[in-house]
């Protein structure tokens, strides 16, 4: 069972309290974007076995969206952070580096 800490209301929410929102840190391409960039935004996902960044919504709780870094292989959670961030906070990246040396995800490493 996945338990994520909601950075907004500060509770440890069970998976059944949450709603998954797919991959985090997508760049929303709009009018004027190249075909490749739009295709990338609409269809291309990381789908890793290992370190992953996701969007979650505390649906039964405060209703806020937040971002989570976790391992899809072991379900280990590295941390959660505000949805207003465009990249993972340094302390979470450092924590991942400590546990999964050499990790990379999209443009992050």
């Amino acid at each position, binding site marked *: 069972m996945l338990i994520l800490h909601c950075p907004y*209301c*500060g*509770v440890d929410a*069970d998976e059944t*309290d949450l709603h998954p929102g797919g991959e985090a840190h997508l760049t929303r391409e709009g009018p004027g974007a190249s075909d490749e960039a739009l295709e990338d935004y609409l269809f291309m996902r990381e789908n890793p076995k290992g370190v992953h960044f996701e969007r979650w919504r505390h649906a039964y*709780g*405060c209703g*806020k969206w937040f971002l989570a870094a976790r391992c899809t292989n072991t379900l280990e959670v590295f941390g959660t952070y505000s949805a207003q961030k465009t990249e993972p906070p340094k302390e979470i990246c450092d924590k991942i580096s400590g546990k999964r040396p050499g990790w990379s995800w999209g443009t992050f490493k």
Partner: protein
Amino acid sequence: MSEAVSALQGKVAPGEVTIREAGLRGMITLRGDLTDTKLKAACTGLSGVDMPGPGQANCVGEKGLCWMSPDEMLVLVPYAEVTAALEVLAKALKGKHYLAEPVSDARAMFFVEGEFAREVISKLAPVDLHPDTFKPGDFRRTRLGQVAAAFWMRDEDTFEVICFRSVADYAFDLLAASAKAGRVGLFPVR
């Protein structure tokens, strides 16, 4: 004006832990900047209690304040005072970005009273309700069985539970079944 009635009109399921529908209760959803001094003054003035911190509820009698999210407060007042309370809020927050809506008739409230009330709730919600972690004054929005609900502890033996009116029947039956099934022995007996 039609006569207002609560969802289950004070239905009671007596037992070692008694489930009781609270009847008509006034509730106002207030969204806005909870750090704003005027908003804080209006909330505390209406309810007569201090502003609760995140994950907290301060309630005395039928009045109280419950922290719903970083930008939402649930203001509890007696049912008959809701209209007046909304006017107070409108006056206090004039010109500010806020939303205040009466939700009294959209919700149902229950009391869960008894020695193992804690266990009755913990069987239904994915929440750590150990006496060391969840204490009177703590407030949690989560789910009960299959429906969204929120609860807080009035004292060691009393939980107050709110849910949507449309699922009041389900929530009542669920709580009553959980109470009837008896003590689990998960938490130390006081």
